[in-house]
């Protein structure tokens, strides 16, 4: 997808904004707290109905405003897409090409994006729940049935956990919820396994390209393997589940492991290696989505250059495919790292106002 125009009103500190990036790399430069990240965040919100920084829409509203509106128009192969995302007086509304959408599942995938922020280093050094969130978000954009299975799984899990705490729990009642966990959990594990394998295939060369040395490996670690008798695992853990008042086994306990040069990256990698590995995961996602939907998602890189030395920065630019559109924020106006082969536009942001530089 190619972002044509972004309009925002009442969003964060952004002045009522009409931003028309070019093809290729778009550098948004400005000092801290001028609104660089908010520009990317607005696009991310329109694409996924979520912000990477907060779960509360009230945090996204400009002080003294009743809400915000975002409009994104994008070019996709064979069709143009316009998404209107509004949060007004506490009500969230999404429209795709003018048609109101009642569910998040109908929005995801309409604007394919890949987003990297400095906090993504937590994908490498943080808890498993952060990696599961990445898997869920990335796969949900690609596979609508995955998102439905995930939502049904989460609901069934909440219900089962509540039932486990009650006195009147019976085997028949647990069976009814177990069956749902098995059905939807199996869909999740299969999708995660396929996605994990593809991601591993693309992540290794992405890491090599930026770090200029080999060594990143990724393996998906399902809590219950594909082909394992899922229903029996649940049955065998029933007594334990009742003692704990929660469901001990299942894809809500999945993880994936990253190793660099054979050692777990979480404990043993340097800070620079961890950052490069996190970036490699996002670049791998870019390639993976390209392979699945035959078009590049838009790549958003928030403050990535401050994380990398000059050599790694210029190697990063060399890995960005020519056909992919990229929005990149930086505090540094120099675009010397951008190779001459890439189309490049530069914008300055000050007090929430964007101007071409």
């Amino acid at each position: 997808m190619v972002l044509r125009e972004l309009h925002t009103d009442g969003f964060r500190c952004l002045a009522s904004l009409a931003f028309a990036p070019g093809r290729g790399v778009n550098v948004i430069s400005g000092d801290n707290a001028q609104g660089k990240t908010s520009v990317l965040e607005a696009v991310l919100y329109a694409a996924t109905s979520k912000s990477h920084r907060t779960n509360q829409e009230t945090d996204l509203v400009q002080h003294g405003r009743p809400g915000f509106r975002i409009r994104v128009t994008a070019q996709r192969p064979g069709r143009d897409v316009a998404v209107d995302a509004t949060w007004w007086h506490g009500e969230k509304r999404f429209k795709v090409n003018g048609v109101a959408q009642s569910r998040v599942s109908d929005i995801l995938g309409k604007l394919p994006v890949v987003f990297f922020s400095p906090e993504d280093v937590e994908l490498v050094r943080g808890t498993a729940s952060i990696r599961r969130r990445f898997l869920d978000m990335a796969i949900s954009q690609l596979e609508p049935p995955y998102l439905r299975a995930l939502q049904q799984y989460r609901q069934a899990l909440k219900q089962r956990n509540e039932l486990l705490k009650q006195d009147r729990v019976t085997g028949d009642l647990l069976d009814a919820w177990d069956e749902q966990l098995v059905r939807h959990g199996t869909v999740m594990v299969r999708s995660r396994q396929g996605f994990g394998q593809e991601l591993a295939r693309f992540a290794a060369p992405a890491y090599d390209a930026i770090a200029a040395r080999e060594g990143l490996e990724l393996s998906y670690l399902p809590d219950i393997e594909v082909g394992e008798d899922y229903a029996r695992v649940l049955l065998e853990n029933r007594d334990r589940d009742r003692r704990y008042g929660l469901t001990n086994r299942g894809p809500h306990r999945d993880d994936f492991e990253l190793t660099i040069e054979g050692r777990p990256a979480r404990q043993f990698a340097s800070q620079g290696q961890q950052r490069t590995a996190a970036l490699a995961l996002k670049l791998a996602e870019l390639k993976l989505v390209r392979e699945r939907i035959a078009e590049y998602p838009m790549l958003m890189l928030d403050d990535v250059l401050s994380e990398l030395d000059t050599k790694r920065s210029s190697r990063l630019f060399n890995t960005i495919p020519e056909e992919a559109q990229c929005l990149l924020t930086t505090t540094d106006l120099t675009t010397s790292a951008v190779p001459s082969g890439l189309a490049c536009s530069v914008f300055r942001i000050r007090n929430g106002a964007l101007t071409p530089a």
Partner: protein
Amino acid sequence: MLFNTPAFEQLVDALRRLPGVGKRSAERLALHLLSAPGEEALSLSEAIVEARRRITRCSQCCNLTDRDPCAICAHPGRDHGLICVVEHPSGAMAIEKAGAYKGLYHVLHGALSPLEGIGPDELAIDALLRRISGTVREIIVATNATAEGEATALYLSRVIGQRFGTAVTRIAHGVPMGSGLEYADDATLAHALEGRKQL
């Protein structure tokens, strides 16, 4: 000032408990009822009381009715060997409107939901089990395609299978996942009933 008075807030709270009514619509409705002529609010409250007095649960299918047994249970032309189980009267109404189904209904008045404290005893499940006899050939479970509706369907198939061995089927195709029957169009519902499968 009206807004902080207990009477106004009580009315808003009562309206908010209605399905599909949020805080803002509740306030709008409350303001309307209070500023409209007095008879309007009075006739609404009378209509509610009157409807509640006349309309009860059918002693057989538990659907809402103004006579017992209800028109469908009492109808000799309906197929009394088929029982279609729905969560709410709205589900039976939706299938009835689609016009393709000639059997009987059973309304559970909800679905299993430990989070809301709803177990088998809170639903009209015993009443359903009492209806199952040799003349009932098939129970069609048309609970919603939500986690709660699916769990309820599975639970019913277990309980009915263990005690009676009557065929239990589940409507299959077309009903949108995660949503209620009343949102499906007629053709979808007719197709869903057609494509039911063994549970």
